[in-house]
């Protein structure tokens, strides 16, 4: 049977349409306004991409043997970062078989988001055509739910996608209610928070002890959770400390200083209430979603919109996140709202480019358009936060990715359906 099929397979099969793959090579993007983020705008500018890197940025760069892409009237931006969400870790939100972000157990820092990233998730091409090229995939669940990983939205294996940052998530004990469905009394909330803090200190104490014994050359029992957590003790990996209520933020800052760990605050919904204290701590913040409801009914209606701007004005280094999965493509609009409500366009653009690259420790090769950096960038008809803007080209690590996805294919198929109404 198999033998009989062989001659058939040896012929090229006939399919309709051509599948467009991501491809790399030499590209020269010409005649654009290059928004470098770190070194101003270059009008009539060009960007030369060679071997996955930005070879040159400026005016009048000779094309040589590069493929020329005319970008007259267009703008070139560095690829946008989403500071956190679950893209790649879940396919259909309500189908548990497709949810790979939450493990069983309260202390599971050794669970690696990168392992569970699905490079072929439908949501990845849906996201990257917006100019969002790089996202932080966050595990969720217990107090130490796992290790987050920064990924680029192109590649066929998690390792090809890995963008060079990992952090251990700590869901900091909270005195807030999890949601409006949380019906615990004030005392219960307080008691639970106190117990969670005690638990946290016990766990941390164990990690410190584990690290001490390890450093002293001790013969340690198999303990994968502490093995991973000890990397936060030494500072090899930072802690991503998820904390939102104002009083919790203050406690978290104190805890981080006490333990002397490297940390990034995430969530930080009520950051505006304690912005000066966050600024004084020097800790960077990943905040969002900006498009969300205030945490308190008495808050001004735009408390979440103005939060990033207020923190930035106080001197906090702010990165914005969508905290989304399939609609991570809304990250630019989160930044747009932050810009409109006090942050300003320039600072908001930094919050999703160079600030993110700095916070993730990869600013030497990402976050701006500069010669020598990774060629992760996109071409748009205008301001990428503006809703009507069209993105025309996206490059990730020098790969020109196809400007298509399921949403676009359905549009192409159904805009003028045939047959229409009649049979």
């Amino acid at each position, binding site marked *: 049977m198999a033998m009989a099929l062989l001659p058939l397979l040896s012929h090229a099969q006939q399919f309709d349409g051509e599948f467009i793959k991501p491809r790399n090579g030499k590209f020269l993007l010409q005649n654009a306004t290059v928004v470098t983020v770190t070194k101003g705008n270059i009008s009539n500018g060009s960007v030369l991409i060679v071997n996955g890197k930005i070879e040159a940025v400026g005016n009048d760069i000779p094309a040589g043997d590069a493929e020329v892409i005319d970008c007259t009237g267009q703008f070139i931006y560095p690829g946008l970062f989403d500071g956190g969400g679950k893209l790649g870790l879940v*396919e*259909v*939100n*309500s*189908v*548990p078989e497709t*949810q790979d972000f939450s493990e069983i157990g309260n202390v599971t820092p050794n669970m690696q988001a990168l392992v569970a990233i699905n490079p072929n998730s*439908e*949501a990845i091409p849906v996201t990257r055509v917006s100019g969002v090229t790089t996202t932080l995939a966050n595990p969720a669940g217990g107090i130490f739910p796992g290790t987050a990983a920064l990924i680029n939205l192109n590649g066929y294996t998690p390792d090809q996608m890995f963008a060079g940052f990992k952090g251990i998530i700590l869901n900091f004990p*909270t*005195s*807030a*209610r*999890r*949601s*409006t*469905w*949380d019906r615990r009394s*004030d005392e219960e909330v307080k008691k639970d928070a106190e117990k969670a803090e005690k638990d946290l200190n016990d766990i941390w104490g164990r990690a410190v002890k584990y690290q001490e014994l390890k450093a002293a050359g001790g013969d340690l029992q198999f303990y994968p959770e502490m093995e991973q957590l000890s990397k936060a003790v030494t500072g090899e990996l930072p802690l991503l400390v998820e904390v*939102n*209520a104002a009083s919790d933020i203050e406690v978290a800052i104190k805890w981080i200083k006490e333990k002397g760990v490297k940390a990034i605050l995430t969530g930080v*919904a*009520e950051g505006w209430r304690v912005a000066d204290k966050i600024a004084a701590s020097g800790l960077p913040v990943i905040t969002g979603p900006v*498009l*969300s*409801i205030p*945490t*308190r*009914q*008495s*808050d*001004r*209606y*735009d408390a979440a919109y103005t939060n990033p701007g207020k923190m930035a004005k106080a001197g906090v280094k702010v990165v914005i996140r969508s905290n989304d*999965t*399939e*609609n991570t*493509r809304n990250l630019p*609009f989160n930044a*747009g*709202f932050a*810009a*409109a*409500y006090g942050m300003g366009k320039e600072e908001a653009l930094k919050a999703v480019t160079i600030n993110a690259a700095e916070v993730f420790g990869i600013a030497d090769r990402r976050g701006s358009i500069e010669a020598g950096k990774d060629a992760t960038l996109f071409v748009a008809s205008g301001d990428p*936060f*503006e*809703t*009507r*803007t*069209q993105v025309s080209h996206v490059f990730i690590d020098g790969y020109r990715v196809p400007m298509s996805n*399921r*949403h*676009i294919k*359905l*549009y192409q198929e*159904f*805009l003028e*359906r045939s047959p*229409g*109404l009649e049979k």
Partner: protein
Amino acid sequence: MKKLNYIIAAFLVMVWMPSKGQTQKGSVLIKNATVITITQGDLEDTDVLVENGIIKKIGKGLTANNVATIDAKGKYVMPGIIDAHSHVALDAVNEATAPITSEVQMADVVDPYDIGIYRALAGGVTISHAMHGSANAIGGQNITLKHRYGTFNPEDLYMKEAPRTIKFALGENPTRVHGRGKNIQPRTRMGVEAIIRNGFNEALQYKKGWENYQNESKQKGATPIPPKYDGRLQTLVDILDGKVIIHCHSYRADEIYALINTCRDFGITNIVFSHVNEGFKVAPELAEYTMGASVFADWWAYKFEVYYSTAYNAAILTQNGVITSINSDSGELIRHLYHEAAKTQRYGQLSDQQALELITINPAKQLGIADKVGSIEEGKQGDLVIFNDHPLSVYAIPQMTFVDGVKYFDIEEDQNDMRISVSAMETVEPIFLKEHDHSCMHGVDFFFTNFGRNLFEHSH
């Protein structure tokens, strides 16, 4: 301080009982704005005069005595935004006890204290369609609300001129709640179709019973016994008689097509499909046989039945001639429907006019109120929003919102804390990391527990 306000407010209500049925009407003259009329183009440097809640005049150089005048030079005025699918200002959402609960009325559970009303006003939304949830194939009757925030009387929020509407629901939600949750029909899309079809047939029989009784009553000396009144069936009769507009929660093309066929069989044309993520696949049918589709701008993949959807849905529907609106179904999204409408420019490049119709005149048509609201025209109700920038820009911020000529939101003057009631039990104000109110499956979470996971996050 807040409590003192509350006590004072309560006292004021006691001494000044507003006369029942009379909601506040206001007058205002907005000058020198770019007026986006929706139905008559954009008018530069134009004035709008509202008197006693009604748009009296649109033109240049208008004057009026004893009317508050607002200089809106460089600003944009558009009609109050209308949300055709919302659960804001509702105390309860689902009566998930039977596959048909058409006797239930959302008007009975309107909560005028909901801060969500104010937050919606701050997003320029003046009218919302407060809907029953999606647990039942035929749910309860909805209520169209005008956002007259500040009243303590739920009835003041009713838009009394609006026709009756009712919620239907297809697909995963009714089959999960009833079929899988309670082991009764419907468990499949076959069952949902049959439940609705059977309901209409039973209603026809019920109607005939009453007609027979009325005919017999006319006979001399006859003393017929009237049939037993049934609010559930009577509502279905009212649907068949064209007195109630169906707003149907739906996602997949097959279930949409099936209900279109059922409606055609029963001569029903007053039907709007809501969410309708796969509406784009049956756009020609929706255009021909229905009052259109009310969709999300870009939501997808939060459950399986929306996995094959596209953010180009609204654009495809619009280009196929379907009356299309963008709704929120969310206490968060309702605050930026102007931005949601703008997404049809990213996904499908609709014109400004087409995009703004999605949140004004089109939802007004779907709620049967397009003769009163949804555009800036003389004679229509004075529901207006002033923006500092073009409302389709991501940088646009609503500045003032008027309902019936009364200003309910002003970015410059409003207090930070806009609650009109504070629980006396509350010693420390709760902080919520997430707000789960105002969604389609509110109140039926207990049916989800045996699926071993939390579905609160994607309950639409």
